[in-house]
């Protein structure tokens, strides 16, 4: 007889709180270990209409999976991120057990040089070692050389694992990530008072959130910061996570020097339109938190880690540690709450949202390309200009930036809208508004001189770039393939310096 209410199991593992090896947990937690291993599944059977852990190239709408995905790819990504590492490689995410391998292999980091081009910060959301290193080097760690850490960990044993979410000593959920701890403090959310339900989402918010690298002027260089303060109030700590609030936030915290944008934050300058751009990254938490589920108190773990009994050794109920699309197991996830519905019905409702979001996302990207192209043409315009040409062009650029930020906020979010259907659609409508506005302003600046050159199908005017990589950019010939790539500077020719965690002789 038990009347106390259910209590979470408490463990005494004998492990130290700073344990970072995954394997160290295997023996005591064979069930969780077993589902955790399933994160290695990444075959075609794991695909859903828009998701699932298959690492196809997100821009490739030509080749069938696993290389591309004609039904869910976004063909203009390489154009829109031109000049930024994301244009070299960006893949559909797969399981947590691949995190280190995938970052070791990604072309976003410069493996052809001793300088990765991006800081050690990138390790933050991939390895259980991060907090060890932070303890060791302090806030200097963020701006240290990425490559120097390639060899300092095991590809599997330190990939996103137990110690990132649990205190190894007693397995209580914990926040291991420095940036989240600081972000929560800044918005006035007291982690000490977080409920168990809160923790079941906050552990994910360590990584599945938008971030930027801090400029030295504002504190430790290259530290990852979550831009949530603009709009946060004591009673609504997450009042600042909507895309317009964050866009306002980025009108500060940076070192842009361009007129009218002085001091704004920018990730890079787009070479075609010469616009200081923002890059959005995986704002799952920011979407979810005020969506129909998040607002109702449903947690990430409720859908992505639903209890399962299917696991040996003892078929006890455990949290499923295979983080993947809930649509691969609707019976075991959604249906605990939506018991009255069929799996087919639930899937169809998800698709009802996703199809519309995907369609509007592609339209938003087409308009965004048109906006860059308009500014490019207006820049090159030799004819008669509007007396306000300069002011109009600055406004146009601001709209290019704003429009791209808005669709990227949706594109980077991995549920194709399901985590917050209405907010997502609103964000895309705004994206389209700003991008269309940018093109119009550029036309005005040239007294409509460029109008003719913008007529017709944008996919023909500016062909989508299907393949691009650091190696391709090393060959000046390749830069001639597209009008847009002519704006790039060729990269120095060089052989690979790093292959995974092996340094190659040079």
């Amino acid at each position: 007889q038990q009347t106390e209410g259910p209590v979470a199991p408490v463990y005494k593992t004998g492990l130290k709180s700073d344990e970072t090896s995954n394997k160290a947990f295997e023996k005591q937690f064979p069930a969780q270990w077993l589902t955790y291993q399933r994160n290695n599944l990444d075959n075609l059977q794991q695909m859903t209409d828009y998701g699932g852990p298959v690492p196809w190239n997100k821009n490739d709408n030509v080749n069938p999976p696993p290389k591309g995905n004609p039904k869910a790819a976004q063909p203009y990504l390489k154009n829109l991120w031109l000049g930024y590492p994301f244009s070299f490689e960006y893949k559909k995410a797969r399981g947590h057990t691949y995190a280190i391998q995938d970052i070791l292999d990604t072309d976003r980091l410069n493996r052809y040089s001793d300088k990765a081009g991006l800081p050690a910060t990138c390790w933050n959301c991939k390895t259980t070692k991060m907090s060890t290193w932070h303890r060791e080097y302090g806030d200097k760690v963020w701006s240290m050389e990425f490559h120097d850490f390639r060899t300092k960990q095991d590809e599997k044993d330190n990939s996103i694992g137990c110690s990132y979410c649990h205190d190894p000593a007693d397995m209580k959920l914990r926040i291991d990530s420095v940036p989240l701890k600081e972000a929560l403090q800044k918005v006035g959310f007291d982690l000490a008072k977080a409920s168990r339900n809160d923790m079941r989402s906050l552990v994910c918010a360590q990584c599945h959130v938008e971030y930027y690298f801090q400029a030295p002027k504002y504190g430790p260089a290259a530290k990852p910061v979550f831009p949530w303060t603009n709009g946060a109030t004591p009673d609504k700590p997450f009042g600042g996570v909507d895309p317009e609030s964050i866009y306002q936030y980025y009108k500060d915290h940076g070192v842009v020097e361009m007129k009218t944008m002085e001091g704004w934050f920018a990730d890079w300058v787009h070479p075609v339109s010469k616009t200081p751009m923002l890059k959005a990254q995986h704002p799952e938490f920011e979407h979810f938190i005020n969506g129909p589920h998040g607002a109702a108190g449903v947690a990430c773990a409720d859908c992505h880690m639903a209890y399962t009994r299917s696991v040996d050794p003892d078929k006890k109920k455990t949290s499923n540690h295979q983080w993947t699309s809930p649509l691969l197991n609707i019976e075991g996830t959604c249906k605990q709450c939506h018991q009255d519905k069929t799996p087919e019905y639930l899937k169809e409702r998800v698709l009802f949202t996703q199809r519309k979001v995907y369609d509007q996302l592609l339209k938003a990207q087409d308009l965004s390309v048109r906006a860059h192209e308009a500014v490019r043409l207006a820049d090159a315009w030799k004819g008669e200009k509007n007396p306000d040409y300069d002011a109009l062009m600055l406004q146009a650029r601001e709209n290019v930036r704003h429009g791209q930020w808005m669709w990227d906020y949706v594109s980077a979010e991995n549920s194709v809208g399901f985590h917050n259907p209405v907010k997502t659609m609103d964000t895309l409508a705004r994206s389209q508004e700003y991008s269309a506005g940018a093109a119009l302003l550029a036309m005005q600046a040239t007294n409509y001189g460029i109008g003719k050159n913008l007529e017709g199908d944008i996919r023909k005017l500016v062909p989508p770039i299907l393949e691009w990589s650091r190696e391709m950019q090393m060959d000046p010939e390749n830069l001639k393939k597209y009008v847009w790539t002519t704006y790039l500077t060729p990269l120095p020719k060089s052989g690979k310096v790093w292959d995974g965690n092996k340094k190659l002789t040079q």
Partner: protein
Amino acid sequence: MSNAPPNRTSPTNWFAVASVLAVLLVAGAAGAWSMQATDQAAFCASCHTMDTSFWTFGKSGHAKLACNDCHAPQNLAAKIPFKAQAGSADVWATVSKNIPDVIHASKMHKDVIQANCVRCHAPTIQTVAMDAKPYCVDCHRSVPHKSRTPISTRKVADG
């Protein structure tokens, strides 16, 4: 707002008065039979007010239970005062015709229910953090009254 407050001066419902007597009998005599009889679905459903709950429960995985397997504390010392209080509240509401449009389990009552979920399902909930949410029914939202299903499939129009 738009719904006028209930009128509190309507004539007495004699069936309900009889029920009051029944409850008093239960509380007073505490006979084993009446204690059990007033736990059963049939008794609860003798009030039209309870038809909805009865109907949905009857279609659920828990149909073989008695209402009070969930709706009253199982330890007798707590059960008698709870039943007397809940029972007389129900009856008073019925007699005075002060029945709300939508009946909700009170916080106290929800805690009683919760304890009962735990009581029966103790073996199931040992290995995981089943206190992830305040109540089991925060996840098991359909147990047992199918609260998200269309009204005509679970409500009786002329209750």
